[in-house]
């Protein structure tokens, strides 16, 4: 079971909200063939995630497990985004142009990137004590 810090829980809740809004406006813009709305929705969504994660990540109030944070944020983002994408599709909220193949393609491609992140994370973790680099404990 992944242990979520207070800030990561706040991020998760906000991310669920952002993703639901993103899905709504994306499906709406695809249905109405509005290219400008598609791009602006994606850009705003990306910026909101970046800014929220940046602020909450910077203000994490933890002393141990610091090195795990980056991977945890990535993992939570992956799970929430793809769960909502699947639920959105099977609830038939998506437009006719959004097929389940696209959802699965994102899950697989992103899943590979997540696995690569995990691989490097585990290598980095080897040189830590309780998730903190050894030279940062007594600094």
């Amino acid at each position: 079971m992944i242990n979520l810090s207070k800030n990561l829980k706040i991020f998760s809740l906000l991310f669920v909200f952002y993703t639901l809004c993103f899905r709504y406006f994306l499906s709406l813009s695809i249905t109405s063939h509005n290219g400008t709305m598609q791009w602006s929705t994606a850009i705003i969504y990306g910026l909101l995630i970046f800014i929220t994660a940046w602020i909450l990540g910077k203000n994490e109030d933890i002393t141990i497990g610091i090195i795990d944070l980056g991977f945890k944020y990535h993992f939570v983002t992956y799970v929430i985004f793809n769960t909502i994408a699947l639920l959105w599709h099977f609830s038939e909220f998506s437009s006719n142009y959004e097929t389940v193949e696209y959802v699965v393609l994102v899950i697989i491609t992103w899943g590979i990137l997540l696995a690569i992140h995990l691989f490097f994370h585990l290598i980095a973790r080897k040189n830590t004590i309780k998730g903190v680099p050894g030279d940062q404990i007594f600094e």
Partner: protein
Amino acid sequence: MKNDEAYKQQLLKSWEDTYKKGQLTFWLFLSLKEAPKYVNEIKEFIEKKSNYTITCEGQSLYRTLRKYHDFEMVNYKTGKGNKGPERKYYFLTTLGHDILNEFIERNIKLFFNENLTDLIFSKGDDHD
């Protein structure tokens, strides 16, 4: 330039700043080895015993103590303060004591070697 007093003091200060950065943990553990203390007492101990060469902020001490608590080297019990709210009295755990003792054995005791003590307190030859 080499004999310029200001230049010498500048270099000395730079060395001391770097040296002192690594000293806080040692002084903090030493203060807790003496007896459990709350943050202000730790601060007072460090500053007095180091002849005020090491100074520390309360907030910085709190952060450091919390980190060492998470690493199980320091623990605390709450006790009554003077009129005010309850205070956290920090103390070294068995792990904290072991680490401090081994640190002293490896890094501090060597300065008490007779040959080294002589060298430390000798004036030193100038080979310029």
